[in-house]
């Protein structure tokens, strides 16, 4: 069998070029070269696989020129047509982790080439990309290089050879939010009793099924006097002024928009549209009130049912937007609304 062809991505530091002062170097393709941690990978691969090229890029350069550099690297990888792409490991280096996650996920999604990376669980790149690409869990510093390479090598070969990938806890990758069955060593009742003993003793234990994200917030008191209250509209349905002036992405939105509806009594085709990519946009484009009910609230304002409709509304796109980003937008929007003296919010989602 022919050797499995691997392309390896690393940053300027692991390429031996330099630290922070060299973080702005542009992406370089080193065909036929094995650099830095690539050596250890190659040794680990033995006769089964080999690195055919190494791509090096400065962390700042990558993160500041993300679209251009991504396109450039994807072009190289397409040309090289490897069986597998490996990025990192990045350990706890934040920008390096984000770069590894970004490029590994792009290779997998856009080129359909198997792709993995490795990093520490708290690296910001982990949360951003663990559901898009296999991220092997490593220690938080390069002192864990040997263990990381060993783990990644074993996984890489298994993956490249189309062997069945087990559950995350078996094969050492970060859980992708997909439930995978496997046989444990102990039966469930024994695991339950052991877990209870640990819980009773205040010792750490790991639940086998983490509940969906619970971040409980005490409900706020109800609105007492609706007739004098200022109500604001917020939507994750992506309603934006015609032309999408802020270029809010149709999915995985990187920002939210703040728009004025001062004097607007009805949203129509000529003035508003949706940026949301997760649903059929026709109905919302025809009449954005179907997502953001400005028309009705204006009527209610006039009739005195509510005090006032807040003159600004906020929009983002719920589709594929990372929990962390959504949280950030929510906090920022909340701050602005409170500062503007808003009493309550109607949030609409699709």
């Amino acid at each position, binding site marked *: 069998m022919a050797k499995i062809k691997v392309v390896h991505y690393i940053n300027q530091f692991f390429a031996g070029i330099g630290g922070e002062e060299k973080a702005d170097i542009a992406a370089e393709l080193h065909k036929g070269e094995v650099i830095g941690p690539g050596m250890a990978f190659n040794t680990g691969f033995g006769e089964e696989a080999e690195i055919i090229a190494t791509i090096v890029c400065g962390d700042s350069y990558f993160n500041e020129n993300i679209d251009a550099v991504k396109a450039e690297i994807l072009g190289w990888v397409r040309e090289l047509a490897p069986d597998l792409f490996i990025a990192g490991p990045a350990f706890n280096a934040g920008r390096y982790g984000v770069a590894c996650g970004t490029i590994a996920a792009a290779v997998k999604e856009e080129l359909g080439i198997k792709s993995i990376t490795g990093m520490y669980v708290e690296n910001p790149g982990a949360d951003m990309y663990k559901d898009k690409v296999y991220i092997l869990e490593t220690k938080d510093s390069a002192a864990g290089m040997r263990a990381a390479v060993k783990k990644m090598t074993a996984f890489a070969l298994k993956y490249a050879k189309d062997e069945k990938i087990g559950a995350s806890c078996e094969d050492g990758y970060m859980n992708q939010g997909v439930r995978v069955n496997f046989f444990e060593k102990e039966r469930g009742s024994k695991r339950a009793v052991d877990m209870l003993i640990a819980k009773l003793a205040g010792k750490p234990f790991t639940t086998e099924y983490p509940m*969906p*994200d*619970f*971040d*409980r*917030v*005490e*409900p*706020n*008191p*109800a*609105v*007492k006097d*609706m007739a004098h209250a200022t*109500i*604001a509209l*917020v939507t*994750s*349905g992506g309603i934006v002024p015609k032309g999408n002036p802020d270029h809010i992405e149709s999915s995985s939105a990187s920002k939210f928009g703040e728009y004025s509806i001062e004097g607007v009594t009805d949203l129509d085709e000529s003035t508003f549209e949706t940026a949301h990519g997760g*649903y*059929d*946009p*026709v*109905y*919302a484009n*025809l*009449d954005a*009130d*179907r*997502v*953001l*009910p400005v*028309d*009705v*609230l204006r*009527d*209610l304002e006039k009739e005195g*049912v*509510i005090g006032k409709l807040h003159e600004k509304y906020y929009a*983002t796109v*719920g589709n594929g937007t990372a929990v962390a980003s*959504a*949280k950030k*937008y*929510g*906090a920022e*929007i*909340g*701050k602005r*609304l*409170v500062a503007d003296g*808003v*009493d*309550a*919010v*109607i*949030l*609409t*989602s*699709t």
Partner: protein
Amino acid sequence: MVKELERAGLPVVHVCTVTPISLTVVANTIVPAIAIPHPLGNPALDKTEEKALRRKLVMKALSALQTEVDGQKVFED
């Protein structure tokens, strides 16, 4: 998003079509909306009817904002 707005001190009513578990346990007040492409509308209706429907949903949302929510509600006979 809901949680962060609540955390900022604002009572929030969330109007949405699907009520994922993660939201339902925190969002105090949810009004299930009509269908995904148009949570507050129904293109099958004529303009006036559709607006009446939307008004009903918005009224419901306002009503929810005026209802105190306690931590745990119990089903009562």
